[in-house]
């Protein structure tokens, strides 16, 4: 499946799709979107890239094993979950900054939780797909 058009297109699509996935992640709290969908879109971006350039090359672009994203994501989500406990609230209490931050909007623990979900989803999808594609061919 080496097509010059797909290769060229995917090279530009990769950053755009990832940007889109971040957009989905950030707007999730107010409009359709969220960490889960965002993560899936980002994963699709890499999968598309791997279709055009081969899985090994995509792995080089990422730089790390996608599996490394799983603990990072789980850690961030767990941190967002237990952070309120440290200041005396029950688990999963939503904590928010008073003022909105430019571009991102309101920043709160829910967003960090969503970020964790986002990273875990990318990690899980890419781990499964890349493992299968690398080791079965």
């Amino acid at each position, binding site marked *: 499946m080496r097509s010059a058009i797909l290769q060229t297109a995917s090279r530009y699509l990769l950053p755009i799709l990832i940007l889109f996935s971040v957009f*989905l992640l950030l707007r*999730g*709290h*107010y*409009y*359709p*979107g*969220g*960490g*889960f*969908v965002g993560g*899936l*879109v980002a*994963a*699709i971006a890499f*999968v598309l890239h791997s279709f055009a350039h081969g899985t090994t090359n995509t792995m080089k672009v990422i730089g790390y094993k996608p*599996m490394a994203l*799983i603990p990072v*994501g*789980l850690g961030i*989500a*767990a941190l967002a*979950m237990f952070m309120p406990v440290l200041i005396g609230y029950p*688990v*999963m209490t*939503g904590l*928010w900054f008073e003022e909105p931050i430019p571009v991102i909007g*309101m920043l*709160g623990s*829910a967003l960090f*939780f*969503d970020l*964790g*979900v986002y990273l*875990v*989803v990318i*990690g*899980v*999808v890419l*781990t*499964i*797909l890349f*493992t*299968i*594609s690398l*080791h*079965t*061919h």
Partner: protein
Amino acid sequence: MLFTVLSGLITSGLLIPFGKFFRTKWCAVLILLPLSIFCYLLKFIPLVRNGEVSYAFYEWVPSLNINFDLRLDGLSLLFSLLITGIGSLIFLYASSYLKGHKYLDRFYAYLCLFMASMLGIVLSNNILLLFIFWELTSISSFFLIGFNNDNPDSRKSALTALSVTGMGGFFLLTGMILIGNIAGTFSISELIAAADVIKNHEMYPVVLLLVFIGAFTKSAQFPFHFWLPGAMKAPTPVSAYLHSATMVKAGIFLLARFTPILGNTNEWSYTLMIIGSITMLYAAIHAMFRTDLKSILAYSTISALGILTFLIGLGTEAALVAAVTFIVVHALYKATLFMTTGIIDHETGTRELTKLAGLRKVLLPVFVAGLLAALSSAGMPLLFGFISKDLIYEATLHADQHLAVYLTVAAFITNLCLVAAGFMAGIKPFTGTLPQAYEKIHLPYKSMWIPPLILAIAGLFFGLFPQLAGEHLIGPAVQTMAHAPAAVHLKIWHGFNSVLILSLVTLAIGTVIYFVNKPEDRKLVWVQSFQAFAPQSIFERLSAGFVHFSDWYTDTMHNGFLRSYLLKIILFAELLLAYELFIGGPIYIDYSKLSAISVYEAVNVFILMAAVVLTVTTSSRLTAVVGTSVIGYAICLMFVYYSAPDLAMTQFTIDTLTVVLFVFVLFNLPPFINQANNIVVIRDTVVALGFGIILSVIAIKVLQVPTDISVSKFYGDFAYTLAKGKNVVNVILVDFRGVDTMFEIVVLSIAALGVYSLIKLRLTSSEKE
């Protein structure tokens, strides 16, 4: 007080990583554990003697009423002193008995675990905590019986013991939960106060039955006795410790513990007396036919446990005093006999009575210990056993008028056999002429023959000064059981009365039986011809049947074909749903509520159906995958029409990724091979159509059922005010139901790791080949 229980558990845990330091002679250091607990407990004797009860309370799972609630009263003190005292000697004895065994550290770990859980049973003031330790003793006993794990007999006996006692444990747990529900508390102190409530409750007979099954399985009462002779496959120190002195007495302890709660009713007394008499007679007579030393001891132990059950059932103060005294006496002489048997086995390599004789010439101190124990078991005056035998006769003779005769006769016959059995185990191997083969035998290490000697001398000591034990140990224990002040006076000389005559007659006739009854293989064969309808065979047939059933079930239900699993799951769901729809009343369609069908929807449904047909009829895997993905996209479009953008987006991405995954996997699969014959195709079609129809009917049914929107209204109302989000779906995911999401991503991660490791694993194993 907490450390008495926890120290053993911790030691046994620490022996896993640090065990290798204790495989050598250093294992003797571990004796300090039971010894120090023993010394610690000794200081409670004066307290307990004054009738004081010490408590220790630590919260564990308060929401389930399970707490580390400990209670040290007369009964628990007596048992814990036995457990740690005999435990110290057994620890010492085992260090040379199993010298050089490669798993010596494991052995001690199991032994520590056992000791701690046994202490837990006797110290618990919470019946659920008691149950946990109860199960721990079953488990540690399983490991200890199966300690020689390369011997199939050993493994089988361990499994039998575990399944019998484990089964009893289930009954016990049910009984305890019932008790807790009736009385509203799981604390033993409070249960004693609520005894009348439980006894007058309509469930009382059920509770009694459940607790009895628990106690009878543990204490090897008929018809559950058969695991105990099998348990003799364990190394002898284990038999001496678990299967004569302590663990099998846990059932007796349970009965004693529950005497003030459930006891002194007709149901209680008669059941215990009947089961106890059957057990003690059956096992005592059985012991006569055995030629293996450990078998004789096993059966006489069962018989002794029967006597205890019987006495607790009798329930008069005299009977309770006799029971408690007999617990101590039996622990002392039976552990001694087991240890001397162990020495004989260790030195000569056999336990067959027919081959052993004259060992007194080479093993003199062992002979002294065996002789003292055998005489104590026979009830020779001046030994502790004499006093206990007197008490037993006193209890039976002074029972109800019409019962006294039967009870005394039963006790008399049992005691006759026990006298003979004790002599067979403790004296027979040492008398007669020494066979030439054994002339070169020499005494084993001191650490092996001193422990039985200490126990035997303790039997003599308490026989000479019975009031010492009566006042400090037995009195407080009886007081706990009777839940009333009890004055216990044990005397060497009761005066010349009917009890004394009975005792002496027992001793005389028992000795005659010993000389008449020569151990012969022929008798053993004769007894074993009854094996076919013994409880053991019935139990074995039951478990064999269960294994067959499991085999059959696994073969039919778990055959490893995904298609077969799917078929069963869907068929089962169909049956359930169809039944639910069938009893759910008529179904009608209210056309006025339906919205008009737009052109887009019609076209979409057309595409969807075309894709379905393509998927089902195609002969290429890839086409089928593409077909299913078209179905998925068509459904996405439906979500878009009905304004569910979140769902549509997610479904769309998931669908895409699924196709990619399929393509990766399909790459490695062979092309479609049509294995299905026509019947299979028709069957699958019927099941699939049926499922589709049922789901459609449900969809229609949903319309006619008024929906409960309170939950969605709550989310809608509070999404912004509480969680500062306008997208309700996302707020539910990351805030309202955030913990769910957390676990979902954990599950996803586990799935990813699973795929990764499965594929990696397969590669490495193929590389090995």
